[in-house]
């Protein structure tokens, strides 16, 4: 195994592009090292991105949008009050990951690029309309988060491509987001279902909404019908029922040791409703 510490994303990308064996980027390492230890993945090239300047910066741009460096940890995000004020759902989703020790390391980019359909921060990022900046052999591009995962453990990133930052749009007036997951325990577990909701209000009326579901399909899903079910409503019972129905309809889960198809589908509707209520209340203040 070769361990690399490039000082730029261009160099990181070049190393990855030139590599012929198994390649992994090392952000927090909370997936990579566990996979290594349990003999699941033994990389030939391990490319640590944490030496690159600016990877741990959180920046609010003039237009109100945010840039979160690829190596910002859950603990760092959770201490950023201005970001929490605007995107509490994204922060709480990343904060759910693991324990205090894991929080000191885990990242949004790692959670996304690991490609798990149950990744907690991904539904929240998708609901928020987040994008990632990607540096590759052919230059840079920006992709919507929902376009990154393509299947369990797989992403649309091309060989040599590396995520340099996560972007969150400007929150704007009267917006709120929330993320909820269902696990049989209270901590240290994998989402059986996850639901992220982000919405904007004009008075009591919802003007825009995005709903994303985790762990109910091979990838995290953006459920456009579920968002549409909320728009124009004041989150009355009918809208909530329509939301739940759209969420359930989008589910294509598997039955496994963590939950059955029926259970996951039912709970997806429940969590979508509950997350929508929280997001709605947050948008109101």
């Amino acid at each position: 195994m070769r361990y690399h510490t490039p000082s730029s994303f261009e160099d990181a990308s070049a190393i990855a592009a030139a590599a012929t064996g198994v390649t992994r980027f090392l952000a927090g390492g909370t997936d990579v090292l566990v996979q290594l230890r349990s003999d699941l993945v033994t990389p030939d090239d391990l490319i640590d991105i944490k030496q690159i300047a600016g990877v741990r910066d959180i920046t609010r741009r003039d237009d109100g949008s945010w840039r979160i460096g690829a190596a910002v940890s859950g603990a760092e995000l959770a201490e950023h009050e201005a970001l929490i004020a605007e995107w509490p759902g994204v922060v709480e989703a990343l904060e759910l990951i693991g324990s205090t020790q894991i929080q000191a390391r885990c990242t949004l980019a790692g959670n996304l690029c690991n490609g798990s359909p149950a990744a907690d921060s991904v539904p929240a990022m998708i609901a928020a309309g987040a994008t990632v900046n990607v540096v590759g052999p052919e230059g840079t591009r920006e992709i919507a988060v929902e376009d990154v995962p393509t299947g369990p453990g797989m992403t649309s990133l091309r060989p040599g491509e590396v995520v340099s930052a996560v972007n969150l749009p400007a929150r704007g007036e009267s917006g709120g987001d929330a993320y909820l997951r269902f696990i049989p325990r209270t901590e240290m577990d994998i989402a059986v279902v996850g639901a992220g909701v982000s919405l904007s209000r004009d008075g009591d009326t919802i003007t825009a909404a995005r709903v994303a579901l985790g762990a109910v399909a091979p990838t995290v899903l953006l459920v456009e019908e579920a968002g549409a079910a909320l728009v124009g409503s004041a989150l009355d019972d009918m809208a909530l029922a329509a939301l739940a129905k759209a969420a359930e309809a989008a589910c294509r889960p598997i039955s496994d040791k963590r939950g059955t198809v029926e259970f996951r589908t039912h709970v997806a509707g429940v969590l979508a409703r509950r997350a929508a209520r929280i997001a709605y209340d947050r948008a109101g203040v």
Partner: protein
Amino acid sequence: MAFDEEMDEFKVVGTRPDRPDGIDKVTGRARFGADATAPGMLHAVIIRSPHAHARIVRIDASKAEAAHGVKAVVTRADFADGLEGENWNILENLMAGERALYDGHAVAAIAATSSLAARDAARLVEVEYEVLPHVTDVDEAMQEAAPVIREGAADGSVPAGMHPNVVRCHDSGHGDPEEGFAEADLVIEERFTTEATHQGYIEPHACLGTLGPDGRGELWCCTQGHWNVQKVCAALLDVETSKLRVTASEIGGGFGGKTAVFIEPVALALSRKANRPVKLVMPRADVFRATGPTASTSMDVKIGMKKDGTITGASGVFRCQGGAFPGAPMEFTAMCAFAPYALKHVRQVGYDVMTNRPKQAAYRAPGSPMAAFAVESVIDELCNRLGLDPIDVRLKNASREGTKASFGPSWDRIGLVETLEAAKEHPHFSAPLAEGAGRGISCGFWFNHAGETAVQLALSEDGTVQLSVGTPDIGGSRASMCMMAAEELGIPYEDVRTTIADTATLGYNEISHGSRVTYASGLATIEAARDTVKKLCKRAADKWGIDAEAVEWRDGCAIPSGPNAGDFDPMPIKEIAGRMGQTGGPIVGHFEATPEGAGVSFATHIVDAEVDRETGATTVTRYTVVQDAGKAIHPSYVEGQYQGGAAQGIGWALNEEYIYDEDGRLLNAGFLDYRIPVASDLPMIDTVIVEVPNPGHPYGVRGVGETSICPPLAAIANAVSNAAGVRMQDLPMRPSRILEALKARS
């Protein structure tokens, strides 16, 4: 009552000093199983069957043996031949013979110069299997179509006509339950099931062993009983017992699971072949797949009750699955089931059933928690339907001193009624319940055990004391031993150091199991201290020139027993110790016995739970344990046992289970999907120590470590059932199961 009054005069017993091993454990100085090394040490890996049931056609290790760094490979042929009984079972379990009997069953082992080399070489061992039909479910294993795990394994207790997988049967009781049911106003009969759960100790099994060509060996291992390890290793390797010295490491949890032997003979066999020390540390997945979880069960319980709450009759059938070997604790399940109640008509039948699962091992009060789940659920349902108070009903039917136990004997002095009364008076029992919450009550019973015990107490020249016991400290027992020795000798707690001696240092000590340590090693410590006191008094008597009988021991000093004995100043222990070389040599007290009189213990638990009706998730919101300790030597560690039993019970009741796929492979061999509770899953667990002294111990001690896990499954199930409005009869009550039950009702 003189005995009870004596109990109030303790100076050290009943206080809460810091545990002597505390600093070592929080600073990392304590040495656990995997913390040992030796020069030239090899690392071992065990190769395990991926099949639930398969004939081992061929094992070809030639490529592995030729691999870099590999020093030895062992298979079944490297162990003793011609073993019988339980020794054969243990060997067959830790190294398969002709067939692999469960997913994870060991088939070969490798020792190499590094653990990486051993792991790489393990992949080179070629094992050819012929896959056979398998069965993992207890009820299926009893059906005609089920594959036979081992022909001829049943003993004479099994009624004719039963499936060969039923290998032992227990049948006891008195009166005629049918007559009792006829007298009842309401009879309820239901079926209950529980899944296998693992003890879930955080420290995996680990050992470091050396066995030379001369047949002499040393073994360091993480165990609840090193004399047992010594005995088993000697038999399985065909060496003489006393040539193998075994030292117990600190232990990171056992709960019964480390009373069994899984890896030590393998390390020693590899060492003998390689002539090098061999270290073997079990990966977590192996711990789940190949060490003993507890039995899974299927149980039918029938109870009749009058409108006034009198139980008129009770019967139960308890089927326990203990893996591919005899030994599921069905007799305990049956005997504990109705033990809390004084019944005129009662019968309990137990079946020990073999399946293609790992060999079950003891887990805190083996068999009892499941029985309580079934019985106490039916009692709760009877109380609900007859509109009766669950504690009053239990008080009305409670076993008391002199009543005949459901399994035969008459009860000695017991404290069940006292726990029920304390529970009734506890603010928890009368606290208002939140909307949608439910409350559950359950009693529980465990026998407790005494066992062979040897202790030695040696005086140092400065008057401090070195106490050697042979029972590994799995729950703070060193603190309690120091306290009992200090109490007897009249010296400060800090002046006693308790060590867990190795097998070469003391006589045979039975395993730390059966909640026996504070009882039996405690009793032996007290007796060894009394033996020491006699010797101390003799030295003082010699010095004073009076009879030894005329000297008494008080507050750490020898004193003349009365004015007639003479007028001498008290002679402190330090003074006697300082001169012992010149006054007759070292002063050592000791005690060896198999005590009788481990008092049984009862408990009553109160649980509040809330159920999320949309997701089926349960939150345990309040928990109170009330248990009879006889006498709490160190109340904090008694409370710790109570809380630990409740915490493990919460896991067992709500989320823990062995999950098998249709090929009989274990799907959740790790802590991610084998869900023991995390701290945030638990409420603060409140405890009440009831003290009804055990006449069989000088201070009244009863074992406390196991009874605490007997009531939780039932108490939690009753709380959840009352919250959800639907009776939960299958454990674990995972969210999907609760949601299905709610759906089925509406």
